[in-house]
């Protein structure tokens, strides 16, 4: 479904992703863990095409994401091609990024109406269904400024899902939340895992949650996958020294 092939990304001299090879199968739930600055966010952002890559190719559903075939060669994609590719990917951010001048419902309808060309009626039905799913239907007419962090993040998830993406990206979606509302957001993600066949990539610091719901966990270090495996392999029996160090450091913090 998603394939990174020898992907490099640097900011100036700083190599943030180095020679990354990474595959995600259709319907798979992959968690990405690792120390701060290890490039986890950058991996998601390159996949959302919010960052350009310096080298390598990313494939989504077998099609190159940032390049398009032209005269037998791969050339950097133009805006229109990128936009088409983006529609199969949805992303939720640490800081929610809801549109403040729109209500919860309008936030969800915006993409379907403006991008997919749905009628207002269709978009509203789809959005209300999703707001219901995330438990926010009662607040559909509220602006984000009237919602708590957990509520905003649930609306943000509904907004991304309204585009019917094939791949969902979650970048530390609970990090900005108070501890007592983290559960309302993780429960929504849990529901997505059990009830939908979405491909999901989740960056998280919640080891317990990652262990619970992932098919696979990747430990990032220095822009590379240092170690990966099923949750029981990686958490239960880590092989690499850095993984062990990281996991014990995280355990101490709790």
């Amino acid at each position, binding site marked *: 479904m998603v394939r990174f092939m020898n992907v490099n990304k640097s900011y100036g001299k700083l190599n943030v992703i180095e020679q990354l090879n990474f595959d995600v199968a259709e319907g798979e739930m992959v968690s990405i863990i690792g120390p701060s600055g290890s490039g986890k966010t950058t991996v998601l952002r390159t996949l*959302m*095409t*919010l960052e350009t890559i310096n080298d390598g190719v990313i494939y989504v559903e077998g099609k190159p994401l940032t390049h398009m075939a032209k005269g037998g060669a791969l050339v950097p994609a133009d*805006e229109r091609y990128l*936009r*088409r590719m*983006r*529609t199969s*990917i*949805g*992303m939720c*951010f640490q*800081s929610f*990024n*809801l*549109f*403040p*001048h729109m*209500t919860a419902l309008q936030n969800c309808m*915006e*993409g379907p109406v*403006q*991008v997919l060309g749905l009628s207002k009626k269709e978009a509203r039905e789809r959005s209300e269904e999703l707001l219901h799913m995330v438990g926010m239907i009662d607040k559909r007419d*509220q*602006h*984000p*400024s*009237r919602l708590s962090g957990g509520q905003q993040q649930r609306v*943000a998830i509904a*907004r*991304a899902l309204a*585009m019917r993406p094939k791949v969902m990206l979650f970048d530390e979606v609970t990090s900005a939340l108070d501890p007592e509302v983290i559960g309302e957001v993780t429960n929504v993600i849990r529901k997505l895992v059990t009830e939908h066949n979405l491909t999901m990539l989740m960056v998280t610091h919640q080891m317990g949650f990652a262990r619970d719901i992932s098919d696979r966990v990747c430990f990032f270090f220095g822009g590379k996958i240092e170690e990966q495996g099923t949750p029981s392999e990686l958490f239960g029996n880590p092989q690499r020294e850095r993984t062990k160090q990281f996991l014990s450091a995280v355990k101490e913090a709790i």
Partner: protein
Amino acid sequence: MPIWEFLQRYSSVVMHGTWVTCLQFLLAALVAVSIALVIGIGKLSANPLIRGACVVYIELFRGTSLLVQLYWIFFVLPLFGITLPNFTAGFISVGLNYGAYGAELVRGAIQAVPRGQWEAATALSMSPFARMRRIILPQAIAIMLPPWGNLLIELLKGTALVSLISVTDLMFQAKQINASTYLSAQAFGTALIIYYLFARGLITPSMRWAEHAVARRLGRS
């Protein structure tokens, strides 16, 4: 002559001048806002040619005096085959000049919209145009309304210069009355008060109202 009698005698002339000033203000403001949006957004373009053109525009109109620009547009452009009536030349000059200042307000406000808003709109696959129109501008407008209030007052005061190309605005009428009666204090005193009332009694409250309206749309009030 007591002010009371002065007002009685010249009120219709003063009223007419005020009306012309009002029109000059509205039309110049329209030009300024349009120019500011185009140039302000253009200055953020990824295309270096567009960006360069906008920088040149802003530099040119902010770096030279409005009065010289007014004379250029009214007296020099006809030499190139573009002749504008003085009324039109007046509000266009004022609009172009204040539009250059407004462009910086637009650019600044757009840049002040959090990065995450662009990213969220991009993640929804919105086109650059839709992103700007639906997501960024509505928020940028909320940010730039207060400084626009000040700029529009400056623009109103700037319209007084059009009297120098014989547009019959409030300033022009005040000068006429002064020239024929030598009642300087009354003539210019009246103009002073009307400009002040226009600015503080009409523009400032209108902008306040607009700010409230926008705040309401953001769900903030």
